[in-house]
């Protein structure tokens, strides 16, 4: 009687990797078959200090679409700022934010368009979430059925810089004090570790 061979760890790892690959493929297929196609544009953001606020630049550039549209359809481009999960503001293109829908460029075609750059100053701190939507021309961009592509979502960090601190000396004192405390804490832990190591060496001379 031939003894059965237990599956080796390598075989199991191979099986696991195959399963992971299957899951990844399924997800990829689902992504391709999503209700909305990928957008024919790319979005990049840039930030720079601007007085009390942060200047945010949003660039939208055409890129070849993954799927060829049956009939090219014009669309309007909107740059939207998500404020939490409910409220939105529209970038007007002239640097202002509007609560009512305003497109940064209208009548754009998938086949290509000149790069668009809009910039404006944002006050406040934390993160700004920018969404770029391509909606059918002259329709409400907040209605999903008007979207031609999946929107693109980008997070932009908005924060003050140390150089802009009104009283840098005080900031330096506080961070210096905390740095010193951190250094003391690190020294304590390292010293405790060394002391125990030497104690262990004394009690177990053959340990090593």
């Amino acid at each position: 009687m031939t003894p059965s061979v237990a599956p080796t760890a390598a075989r199991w790892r191979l099986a696991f990797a195959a399963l992971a690959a299957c899951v990844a493929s399924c997800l990829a297929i689902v992504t391709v078959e999503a209700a909305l196609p990928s957008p024919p544009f790319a979005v990049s953001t840039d930030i720079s200090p601007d007085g009390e606020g942060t200047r945010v630049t949003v660039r939208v550039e055409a890129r070849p679409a993954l799927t060829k549209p049956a009939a090219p359809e014009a669309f309007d481009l909107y740059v939207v700022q998500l404020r939490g999960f409910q409220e939105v503001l529209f970038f007007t293109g002239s640097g202002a934010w509007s609560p009512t829908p305003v497109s940064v460029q209208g009548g754009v075609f998938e086949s290509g368009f000149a790069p668009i750059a809009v910039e404006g100053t944002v006050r406040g701190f934390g993160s700004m979430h920018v969404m770029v939507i391509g909606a059918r021309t002259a329709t409400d961009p907040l209605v999903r059925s008007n979207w031609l592509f999946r929107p693109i979502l980008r997070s932009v960090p908005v924060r003050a810089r140390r150089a802009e601190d009104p009283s840098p000396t005080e900031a330096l004192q506080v961070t210096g004090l905390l740095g010193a405390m951190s250094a003391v804490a690190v020294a304590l832990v390292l010293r405790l570790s060394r002391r125990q190591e030497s104690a262990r060496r004394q009690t177990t001379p053959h340990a090593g």
Partner: protein
Amino acid sequence: MRLARIIRAHPDAASALTLIVLPILVFGRALMPGKVLSSADVLFTMYPWRGLAPGLRPGNDLLTDPAHLFQPWLIYAVNEVWQGRIPLWNPHVFAGSPFFANPQSALLFPLNWVALIVPITWAFALIAILKVAAIGLATYWFLRVRALHPFAALMGAISFMWSGVVIVWLQWTYAATLIFLPMLFASVECLRIRPGRRAIALVALSVALGVLAGYPQGLALALASASAWALWRAHGAGVPFLWRFAAGVALGVSLAAIQLLPFIEYTRLSAVLAAREAWMPPLSASFRSVISLLVPYYYGSPTGGDYWGEWNFNETAVSVGLAPWLLMPLALIARRPGVLFFALMAIGAGLQLYGLGPELANAGSFVINFRVAPLLAFSLCVLGAIGMDTLLTEPDRPSLRQRAVVRIAFVAVVAVVFLSFTADYATMRRLGLAAVSPVRYVWFLTLFTTSAALCLIGLSRRGSAWAFALLGVQFVGLAPLALSYNPVIDARLLYPTTPALVRLQQEVVEAPGRVLMAPNLAMLYGLEGVAAYDGMTPRHLDEAIRPETSALNLLGSGYVGEISVFWSPVRDLLGIRYILVPPEVAVDRPGLSLRYHGADGRIYRNEAALPRAFVVAEARCLDTAEVLKRIRARAVDFRREVLLTDCVDATPGDARSPRTDASSPGTARIERYSADHVRISAESDRGGYLVLTDSWFPGWTANVDGRETRVERADHAFRAVKLGPGHHDVEFRYAPTSVRLGLALSALAAIVTGALAWPGTASWTILPSAAPILRGEHP
């Protein structure tokens, strides 16, 4: 000394007791007379409640869902059950909507049954205590089944049960689902170690209870990760183990069919799900939010009103305390079984949560990157527990490598937090956090240094005093969030009835009709409203109210708000007779008359509101798009004609009944009205259609004079039945097939599960003995 002896003699019992007592200590103050665990004080930022206590600041204004949805639902469900009804339907919101079918009502989840036994003010706290304790016990169970030292398992349990993700979502059903993440892993372990019918039953019970806990997305992710764990553990056990696991899952799904089938039915008719199918935003936390894993209040807190991080605090709160960050590296270098799996799970979940993984936004409407946070927290806690186990079970072999990794972890974490703090200090100062932020840093540094010192002591000495101390420091680090996040308020602030609400209650007795007020809360005052949200939203009603948008909002969530309903073309059809607005808002519109003006609001009466039930002479059969087009154009006289959809015996565009004298189509009077049963007496000389402006939904049946009659979908979202000439008794009943079929399937699965779990001759324990581990004989 005696206590230490008892703990050593009964470590599992002592640990279980600790896991139960800690939540009681943290939330027990909510059981004191006159107190309640609730965020209902958020209502005092809006009218009419604001009128009672202007200027009252809520304890945590981020906890709106518990105040607007979960606690009102529980109160509604308890009232219905005490009146002898199973709350399948809720007539108080959305012009009526499925209640039981919405899994977040979690009617069948055993922990919620507490509310049936004790006063509701106690129930909120008791349910929270039980949830946290159950999460801790399930985590402890899993780690002990993995043969970890009881103290190490306790470390993992305490870390997960008090983790940010559990505490911030505690009053949502989401937290209840988190019980079943460790429980599923433990069930897989039981099945692996002691394969057999009872282990299959255990898997089935874990899956079923997880479904009933009320947050399908959370359970799906837990089940996916537990399945991956089963696959990982299949090495050496072979395919039969995987078949047993699959059988357990299938049985569990069948057990929960009573909840799942109605949920699937509601899903098909949900506006939220329809919107998310088109596109699900790939929301995730930014990489810099990682810092809040180490310092939970790094970006401030909603309870302090100084939060400046991204999205909201709840979405990024994943902290698991500080000890796991020192213990984890020990686990990684020890190469214990399973470490690689949990390390990969932590990395995968972390990448997804912090927006560095693949975009899963279009993998259906189910995946939100934020929802993988529990997987990250759980895997970090497990790794931390394994690391502590190496300290407890290998005290004679401390290596230089172990000391080195603790030192490196300590220095690295301190450096990261300090550098981040230095970079953000200018922002913190501008936000007025110049004093509080350094205090938060010092608190972190003190706890982390103490934890590191205790780990190093643990590496060098025998005994377990250091382990007790480390557990204590870990709890102290997690306690601030646990103690402060879920407010305990004065019980008088729990949904008080204001003078305006009293007036509304009086008015609806005099002239019945729906009210327009804050979403969902009409249900607490015996009123019937339309503005509401439930995470799903009946699609037809949403489309009738907002025919020009038919979408909830940009992100595919949100609610049917008062303003949408007020400007809706179906406002009068919905029978909205009363409109409650803030006291400073004057509504000058034809047909609206002021009935009340007080400090808590104004009430207007809408004279144009249609009655809940009425008879029309004319009907037209149209397709959905045409109905919505006419409604949008306000081109329908709802008093005169009804637009029918999905007609079975007429072609679209057909007039379904002869045009008659529209001035006297007939009368209708509601004789009896309860959640799932409406009886109407109708009279019509020439026949027509009885329209009931309650939401149309599958499962509603109608009897006219005792004969079953088809319920037509009227005016896109409502109900109608055809009447012949003469007097008729019409009865509408809600008895969905999905519930009946689900019940039958669940009953069958329960019999099978019971048979599998039936005690046999062989003994079966779910926990290995701790004695060998305590003797230093690590398996």
